[in-house]
């Protein structure tokens, strides 16, 4: 029997939007892949470059940040800062020979439970297509 590759994804979710949207997705009985491990943050502005890189270093196959819609950040511009940090990490991954698509930024509101599930499904599919992280391959 062939082994099915199940990637590990880390999602940094803002408590005001994406995390609440995940709650809503649950209430709506929407299913999304269990590959996604959610970390709640008070605002995506709290997510630093080092958090994303550490996730990659520790063999996460994909990492994403899910914050409020642009213009709706509870702390005015945390989500905009997070987007720039995600871009920085994408560039760093490119320099390191890792696919930058493994890191992504999403914006959604707390009312978008179905969108939360859709993002989790899309990111999991994307990472499955990319295969295991080269860091993980180096580990073995």
């Amino acid at each position, binding site marked *: 029997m062939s082994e099915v590759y199940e990637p590990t994804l880390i999602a940094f979710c803002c408590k005001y939007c994406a995390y609440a949207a995940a709650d809503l997705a649950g209430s709506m009985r929407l299913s999304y892949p269990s590959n996604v491990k959610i970390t709640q943050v008070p605002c995506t502005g709290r997510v*630093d*470059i*080092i958090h994303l*890189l*550490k996730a*990659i*270093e520790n063999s996460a196959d994909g990492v994403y940040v899910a914050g409020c819609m642009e213009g709706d950040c509870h702390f005015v511009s945390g989500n905009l800062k997070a987007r720039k940090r995600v871009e920085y990490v994408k560039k*760093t991954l490119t*320099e*390191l*020979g*890792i696919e930058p698509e493994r890191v992504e930024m999403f914006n959604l509101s707390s009312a978008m439970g179905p969108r939360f599930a859709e993002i989790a499904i899309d990111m999991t599919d994307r990472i499955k297509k990319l295969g295991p992280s*080269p*860091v993980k*391959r*180096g*580990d073995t």
Partner: protein
Amino acid sequence: MIVADRKPLNEILDMVKRCNRILVVGCKGCVTVCNVGGLKEVQILATSLKIARKIGGFPLVVDEMVLERQCDTEYIAIIKETVTDYDAVVSMACGVGPQFLSEAYPEQKFYPAVNTTFFGGAVSHGIWEERCAGCGTCVIHYFDGLCPVARCSKSLLNGPCGGSDHGKCEISREVDCIWDKIVRKKVEQGRLDDLLDVVPAKNWQSARDGGPRRSRREELIQNG
């Protein structure tokens, strides 16, 4: 402050390619302020190097440390006991740091992780500009606080030249013509006649033309 940019990762990886264990050491001085070699940047570089080496199947042990300053021997002494535990030390300070470290610990290899670029300041978040050339003889009193030595592409003391184009320098649309600013300021202050005085030729011996420089303050020197 001294402004720097981090070197490309590949360049740093090449420096440490034969190492198994390194120390990345930052500095809490200028490079922390310009977000290049402080605690965060040390963590980012260390993690990036570890990721790259994991991928290559040749893992690297990276320890992290940030010194108060790398341009003072008393702070450098903090790593005395551990500096030889590593195959090499990567300094994230300006060019002064790895040299002070190298002089203090001749038995160890020190590599620079940043390119030291200029003396300047942050004009806005994330953007730094050159303001001082460190020429050793300040002349900005002639120009109402604006320095043509550092900010004119030709370091003209009697400008502007014919390359001034609507407030921009001919070398790039992103570079302001400092002589345009000097003239405008003189006009605004009604002192344009100041510019009729020819500024005498500058003695560049106090700049790098006189060789490496040293500053000596007798009142501060201890132990003879």
